[in-house]
């Protein structure tokens, strides 16, 4: 059985505080959300906490999207090909992906002008592909880090969270389609 890793459990207190601070600042930049939080001051904290709470995601699954769209794996898109999984050995590489929180207040949706960028540096990773779908990753190591982006240009420095020694087979909850 594979034990899943959750991003919010890897965040320390300072990182969470930074995320909440950035979320609050981003909420202030949104006109409608600012009007809402001005009428309900408690809402500002609730929004900030909601952002850190929505980081309950599997970081490997999030980063695996880059593999699914990689040019080198496009030859394995055929879903009818093969009955046994194909195991690919990958060289050292790194992946970044932005996580953008979207706040919903009752029925109003507010896309905050901030992003939590998750980065992973992989070495010696093997991927299992079956019928055009990425079913698991394993072996090697994965160093996870995050940074906060208030805009496309302004971003905090990378902060390393942890370095994971991946098991022989880290199976994704749902197979990821290669596209």
């Amino acid at each position, binding site marked *: 059985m594979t034990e899943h890793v959750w991003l919010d459990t890897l965040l320390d207190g300072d990182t969470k505080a930074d995320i909440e601070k950035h979320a609050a600042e981003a909420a202030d930049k949104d006109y409608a959300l600012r009007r*809402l939080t001005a009428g*309900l001051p*408690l*809402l500002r904290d*609730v*929004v900030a906490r*909601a*952002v850190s*709470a*929505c*980081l309950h*995601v599997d970081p490997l699954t*999030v*980063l*695996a*999207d*880059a*593999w*699914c*769209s*990689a040019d*080198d*794996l496009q030859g394995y898109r055929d879903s009818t090909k093969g009955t046994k999984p*194909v*195991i*690919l*050995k*990958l*060289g*050292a*590489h*790194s*992946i*970044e*992906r*932005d*996580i*953008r*929180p*979207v*706040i*919903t*207040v*009752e029925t109003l949706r507010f*896309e905050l002008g901030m*992003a939590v960028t998750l980065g992973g540096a992989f070495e010696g990773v*093997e991927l299992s592909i079956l019928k055009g779908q990425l079913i698991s990753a394993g072996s090697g190591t994965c160093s996870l880090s995050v940074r906060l982006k208030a805009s496309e240009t302004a971003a905090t420095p990378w902060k390393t969270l942890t370095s994971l020694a991946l098991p022989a087979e880290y199976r994704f909850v749902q197979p990821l389609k290669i596209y």
Partner: protein
Amino acid sequence: MTKRLIAILCLSGLVAAQAAPAFSQSAAAPKDVPATSDATGGRSTACSARWIAAAAEKQIAPNLVGCNIKDVTAPLLRAKIVPAPRETDNTASVGTILTQRPAAGEPLKPFGRLTLQVSTGKAPAPAQETPAPATSAAPEQPPERPPVSSAAPTEPAAASSSAASPAPEPAASAESKPPLLTDGRVEFKEVPVSAKPTDVPDSLREFITTYPLVLLVGLGIFFAAIAGLAMNGRKTGRTSSKVLPRVACEATFGPGRLVRRGPLVLGEKGDK
């Protein structure tokens, strides 16, 4: 009664004056009479219409003390002086003017008011009647004061008989007189209703002493109910979603950016 009497006297004076205009014409003859001395002069002449008219011409008040209100009302009105009679208990004959205001000789403009104290012919009320305490004054009117009347009905009768006026008069005046209301405070104290509030604590005290357990249980239930209500209110306040709007956050993901330092795929595992 006396008011009616005085009013009848005034009206009769008016009627008499209107019925005999010749009198006024003849009475107005002595114009050569010195106004200052005569108008405020002798009583017998001052009551007549011509002296009143003479004083009115000078715009001074005529001397009407001792005159009868019945005799002077019509002349005063003809002289454009408004009489304002006020009843006063006095032993003088009914309708006799006792005092006046303004006083004789003082200025009085046309249609000015001349206040006249008129005797009712009755003896003035005894001085002890108004400030009398409940024990002595109450029994005078048995039907109106039930609680005290039975106590001592004979004493006040003696007191009233000791007054100068005849016996039946005080009784009649006491029936119609408002002074009874002046001892309202005393009567209010003696009303039996005032004793009821003191009875309620006694009964409550008796209940507490006889049924202390019932009282304690009742109080316990009461406070438990109040505490339950308070807790219920707090619970609903906490769980109410109306305090803050529902806030949810959902993560949206951008495209993954893969940075390679060399070839990504080194090979398939089964190939080697």
